[in-house]
């Protein structure tokens, strides 16, 4: 029997007994009479809902409320954006750092090669000094390998976080996905000037000076 059905049965039984008692006495019932009738009716429900059941239901409801609240809080931080936008963007930026330092390192070493070749035409003592200088530059270029490896570790950590966020989203279900939609466009619309402050662009997103010159020449 559902709670609603139980309540309806209780009301019907209560009304019938009050009416019957009222008819029998042909006078309004006293508070004690009503209390006795209610006690009698309620006693017939023993076994359907116990006090411990009620406590259990109450705790379940509290738990459900807590989960609803937690889901809302998670939805508010827009977790879908983390895996769809923030982490891919961060890893792209880090890849760009590795690429840029690699390019710079190669250019530095190109110059060192040129200096070493020119040094061969110099007096022996000058040649020796120049070679010592280029050796120190080559040694310093070690940094590119080390920073590259460190950045790779950071990228792996970000991918691990991404994986965990994705698992959390799966566990919490569609409602978190829906309420946690992308807000990028909203942010841009809300504050256009702020949205223009994006720092260095990734190579594939950037335009070169010649393209800028062309744009400047327009109008």
């Amino acid at each position, binding site marked *: 029997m559902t709670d609603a059905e139980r309540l309806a049965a209780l009301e019907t039984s209560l009304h019938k007994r009050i009416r019957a008692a009222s008819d029998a006495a042909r006078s309004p019932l006293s508070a004690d009479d009503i209390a006795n009738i209610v006690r009698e009716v309620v006693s017939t429900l023993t076994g359907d809902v116990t006090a411990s059941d009620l406590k259990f239901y109450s705790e379940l409801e509290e738990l459900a409320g807590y989960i609803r609240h937690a889901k809302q809080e998670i939805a508010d931080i827009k977790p879908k954006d983390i895996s769809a936008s923030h982490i891919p963007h961060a890893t792209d930026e880090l890849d760009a750092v590795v690429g840029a330092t690699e390019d710079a390192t190669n250019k530095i*070493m190109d110059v060192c090669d040129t200096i070493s070749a020119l040094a061969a035409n110099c007096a022996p003592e000058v040649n020796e000094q120049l070679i010592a200088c280029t*050796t120190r530059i080559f040694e310093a270029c070690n940094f590119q390998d080390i920073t590259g490896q460190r950045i790779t570790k950071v990228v792996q950590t970000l991918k691990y976080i991404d994986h965990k966020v994705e698992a959390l989203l799966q566990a919490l279900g569609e409602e978190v996905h829906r309420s946690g939609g992308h807000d990028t466009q909203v942010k841009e619309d809300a504050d256009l000037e702020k949205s223009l402050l994006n720092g260095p662009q990734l190579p594939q997103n950037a335009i070169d000076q010649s393209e800028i010159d062309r744009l400047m020449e327009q109008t």
Partner: protein
Amino acid sequence: MAVDMNMNVLIVDDYKTMLRIVENLLKQLGFKNVAQATDGSMALKMMREGLYGLVISDWNMEPMTGLQLLKEVRADTKLKGTPFIMVTAESKVENVAAAKEAGVNNYIVKPFNAETLKQKISAVLGAF
């Protein structure tokens, strides 16, 4: 016995800039014949096809790591005597212990300088 500066030296690293750095440092130390491989399996193939007097290898590479390369070299009857120096950013005690157990001749932690490279090569091949 003097070190033969004309010997073939094989450097192995998946970072091309690092290969270039090590090659330049070796050339400035006087080594004339330096070859490059970008991972362990490429290096092993080159070693089986040619004669190398020294291998200087990174550890962290794919698909074959420097440690796997070292083990393959030590297990190969023709190659097992090749001097092998590990040059790597892996600087934990257990790494060094594993490399030593696999038969590495010396171990250099990145970043390093030309003097360290020279000292370790000297320790393996003799003074030059």
